[in-house]
């Protein structure tokens, strides 16, 4: 069983978005940007020294950038992507909380075996889905009982 007691809500009206929510999505955004750049770097076959030369930076700086997205700016990401392979980031918007809420509701109601259904349904249009879902609101620190979200076949995989 996988659990999460956190349910973050999408922004509503003029309500202030919580710092916790912002922090979580900043972290998520950094990791996703990092994945994109490092996948490009691995595909390129470049060495860190090559990349440093292309950027006119010290190897230590480039090495640090490739180690973590912690202190990246948008310019860092742009510089890295372009210097690695002449690439730029392609931007699309996603609504992960809407998907998350949907996944939780699906798995809680359908139970075992629901995971495969999720994959096929998360790609449907966000706007169309939004009307169908009730997006839970955050209730930090209220009920600390774990909510069982979905059945996870990982133990089976691990033992296989």
């Amino acid at each position, binding site marked *: *069983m996988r659990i999460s007691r956190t349910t973050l809500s999408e922004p509503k009206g003029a309500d202030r978005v919580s710092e916790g929510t912002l*922090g979580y999505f900043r972290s998520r955004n950094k*990791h996703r940007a990092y994945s994109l750049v490092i996948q490009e*770097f691995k595909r390129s076959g470049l060495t860190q020294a090559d990349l440093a030369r292309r950027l006119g930076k010290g190897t230590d700086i480039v090495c640090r950038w490739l180690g973590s997205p912690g*202190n990246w700016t948008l310019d860092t990401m742009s510089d890295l992507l372009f210097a690695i392979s002449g690439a730029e980031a392609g931007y699309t918007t996603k609504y992960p909380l809407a998907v998350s809420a949907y996944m939780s509701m699906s798995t809680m109601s359908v139970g075992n075996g629901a995971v495969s259904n999720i994959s096929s349904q998360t790609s449907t249009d966000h706007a169309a889905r939004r009307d169908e879902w009730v997006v839970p609101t955050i209730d930090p620190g209220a009920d600390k009982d774990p909510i069982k979200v979905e059945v996870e076949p990982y133990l089976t995989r691990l033992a296989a």
Partner: protein
Amino acid sequence: MSTPETLAAKLAELEGRHLWQLAPIAPEPDPNRAVWVTLEVLDTVDPVQDGNWVDYRHSEFRGSLDAFTNWEMISVSENPFAKDRDTFLARVHPVELEFWDIRTIQPPQGMRCLGGFVGCDAFVALICDYRENFEPGQFDGLVERCRARWRELFGELTPYSGDSLDAYLTNYIV
């Protein structure tokens, strides 16, 4: 050396009572890694709270654990004494113990989360602490806490051990 089969069997015993598999807040359709957490870690990262600076740090830490589960690319260092200061996952000294550190760098001074693998892409997060709580040379105390917690839960079983990083992880960079 414990096998993934024996570790999985033990994990099944512990799950729901002492260890919980953490679900990402915003999961990707096909998360490809798994993290089990102790109550100590669970209470730190879940639920994400809106409050003070500490809560903000915890939410970034939760972001790190979810990045692991959501199969984001991660940087790894195998040498505890020669690692990039920003590396995401680092082996802990002494390496024979097979403990690893998930390192949340932002916001400064960051947080550390120690645990061991139970299979490829399957990590058990045992303890966590704020980086400023241990100066260089004081890390051993944290490792000792980790070792004690592992023993409490897994007894004589040892963490999963592999010949190369590929045995522990997919989608990583050294």
